[in-house]
């Protein structure tokens, strides 16, 4: 009946299908070895003592607290006991420090997407995942990616906190409303893998999942070509840009009431407050939702909020469009 073989059902370790999976598992196995050693040590010692020092006959009665107890000298005042305490404090401390550095180092890698990663936009909402490719292909609860290509996920939520979890990739990241979070992976083996929501998000939390389909390059190209798509993300964004009226203020030159957005993405923007901010996804999103939060220098704070007028999907498209405006320009770095 079940779609899975007996082998899968008796599996005790998840499959490895991303570049970091092997590294995480190496650390994991190291932890297992350390744990088995210490747990084994304790169990063996306790077992041994229980057998060896089991009470065979009733021993001397316990004197009352007030009485002199000459023989109850405290073992822990002796030098040997002190050495023992130091020994079993320092050794575990040393081991945990190794684990800490190892884990933190790997976490650092896992938190920083490679610069050349392909971008996928993820929007979580109760209870589905909406995914958009740069080319405009949209998917729900299913993500097709090419093998051996780093993929960066830019994620946000329309309602509550979700968490994007692909066990086979050892990737998990909360998807938080009101901000973008980022995760990345590079799949190593073609196949289908579970996608779960790991952060409790309400009634149908358990079914808010789907699958990641990892494909060989040719298969992937074929899928891309065949996938339902209207227009690319940037094109959709451009349409929206004119439709909801962004274009009436943000013109191609700095002649409008708002700054021109051509060549803006990736530059540093001077703010009215005197500070500067990097124009990235987070800043653009904030400027659409809370326009007054950071005002560009030289422009009046007159932009209305677009909360409610544009969905998270729409914001993603607008950002893609604004990004595309940067592309033809030469790098305008300060």
């Amino acid at each position, binding site marked *: 009946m*079940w779609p899975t073989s007996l082998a899968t*059902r*008796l*599996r*005790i370790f*998840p499959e490895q299908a991303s570049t970091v999976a092997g*590294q*995480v598992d190496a*650390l*994991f196995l190291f*932890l297992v070895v350390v*744990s088995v050693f*210490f747990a084994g040590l304790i*169990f063996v010692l*306790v077992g041994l003592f*229980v057998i060896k*020092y089991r*009470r*065979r*006959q009733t*021993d*001397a009665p*316990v*004197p009352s*607290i*007030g*009485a*002199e107890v000459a*023989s*109850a000298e*405290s*073992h*822990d005042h002796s030098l040997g*006991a002190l050495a023992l*305490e130091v020994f079993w404090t320092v050794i575990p401390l040393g081991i*945990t*420090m190794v*684990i*800490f550095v*190892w*884990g933190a*180092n*790997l*976490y*650092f890698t896992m938190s920083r997407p490679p610069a050349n990663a392909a971008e996928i936009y993820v929007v979580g909402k109760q209870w589905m995942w909406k995914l958009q490719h740069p080319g405009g292909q949209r998917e729900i609860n299913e993500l097709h990616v090419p093998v051996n290509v780093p993929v960066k996920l830019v994620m946000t939520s329309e*309602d*509550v*906190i979700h968490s994007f*979890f692909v066990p086979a990739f*050892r990737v*998990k990241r909360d998807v938080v*409303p009101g901000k973008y979070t980022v995760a990345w992976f590079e799949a190593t083996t073609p196949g289908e893998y579970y996608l*779960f*929501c*790991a952060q*409790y998000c*309400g009634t149908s*939390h*358990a079914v808010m999942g789907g699958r990641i389909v990892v494909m060989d390059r040719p298969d992937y190209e074929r899928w891309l070509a065949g996938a339902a798509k209207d227009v690319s993300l940037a094109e959709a964004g451009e349409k929206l840009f004119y439709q909801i009226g962004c274009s009436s203020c943000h013109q191609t030159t700095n002649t409008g009431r708002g700054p021109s957005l051509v060549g803006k993405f990736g530059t540093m923007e001077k703010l009215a407050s005197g500070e500067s901010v990097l124009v990235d996804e987070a800043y653009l999103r904030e400027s659409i939702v809370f326009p007054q939060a950071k005002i560009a220098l030289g422009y009046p704070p007159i932009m209305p909020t677009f*909360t409610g007028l544009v969905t998270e999907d729409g914001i993603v498209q607008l950002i893609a469009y604004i990004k595309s405006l940067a592309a033809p320009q030469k790098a305008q770095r300060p």
Partner: protein
Amino acid sequence: MTTAGAGTNYLNADYRVRSWLLTTDHKRIALLYLVSISVFFAIGGALAGVIRLNLLTPYGSLVQAETYNKLFTMHGITMIFFFLIPSIPAVLGNFLVPLMIGARDLAFPRINLLSWYIYVVGGTFTIVAAVTGGVDTGWTFYTPYSSTFANTNVMLTALGVFITGFSSILTGLNFVVTIHKMRAPGLTWSRLPLFIWAHYATSLIMLLGTPVVAITILLVALERGLGIGIFDPKLGGDPILFQHLFWFYSHPAVYIMILPSMGVISEVVACFSRKRVFGYTVVAVSSLTIAIVGFLVWGHHMFVSSQSMYAGMIFSFLSFLVAIPSAIKVFNWTATMYKGSIDLRTPMLYALGFIGLFTIGGLTGIFLATLAVDVHVHDTYFVVAHFHYIMVGGAIMGYLGGLHFWWPKITGKLYSEAWGRIAAITLFIGFNLTFFPQFIVGILGMPRRYHVYPPEFQFLNILSTAGATVLAIGYVLPLFYLTWSLLKGERAGANPWRATGLEWEADSPPPTFNFDRTPVVTAEAYAYPSLPEASRG
């Protein structure tokens, strides 16, 4: 040393209902707590049973998704706020702290009674919330789900938890003042039983942590009730701030549950090995260290939450530090048994069970403190298994061990040793069968709080449910033989285990004011005589 008032003790001094409901005797209040937390334990256990039954198949055959979510939410809330946190402190601590330090009562007896009433009021609110529709936020109340999106009884439940927090604060306050100010002459800090040290450390956490979760829950209620923005991003707030404030209490709360258990284990291991606890000072200080460092590690619940990577590293580092004092305790208990005279009575079986399960729970905690590994296992059944090993394998084993150890003191009766051992072993086996498979299913990637799941996880879930059945039997058994002992049990005498400690100097059950004369202490704790070589056979 026996009391003059032949046969009069705290139990038979007055039989009227009013003498129980208005009592200020710490021993009677302990029994009021014993009854009420047992009720909540039964409720929480029953909910767990339904959860396990539902997970027998991958398709959620037993209950609807909404119902399932309410079940695990209520299971978490009752077990954590209404059973585990008050369990050892409010029952055994209430009973024993004054007895162990040679005092006639806690410093503020009326506040002690008040804290029980507050507990009952908070519990009632929560139960009313449960039966009038339930709540489905998870015990963690994460925003903005709890403050904006959930359409269940969040307000009533939050109010219940808020109120109960004050009960916990008042208990902690009472212990701190009592331990500071009411110790018998000669009972210096270096002579205090480790049970008292553990309760002192626990009380500090209750005092310093509980108010923060109280105000946090209040803010959630404000946001939900009045629509003012605190945590909801749509109203300008930040849901991550909620997680910081919530875990500032809720992580140390784990130590509220486990530290008193550790105190019990120290007493039991010393008594049934007939040896002073090895490294007494180190064990005592490690309780305080856990209480203090335990406040610095809450961010390890937020490694994937979008918390800053650097904050994650700080919290990871500190989390490793807090593992050390726990490890030291385990080593010291083991060393205590070395060359002892070990008697495997029921409480000792629980203590050994505690050491085994806590070791596994603690070591798997290391996995969760490790940043890169936590990313994979966070919010999966691995975490569920880990904290059940700590809270059920650790805290409840300690609680039951302590209850058996001091049962003769509390009731004056001996329970059936054979049944006691059977129950302890049943619990140990059932527990491992229930929760060990959850580690594996978590590593495989099964997220927690799932009402249905992919079929390949079924085998492990069946094992877990089977284990839960055994575990349930293990929990029901003591109810019978302990009740039986009240009716037919042998009289215990003042000191059936021939243990040291002031509580064993008083009668069993103790008279209302514990001691006729304030005892004077001249020896260190656990002054068990060292054994002549011959007696070890």
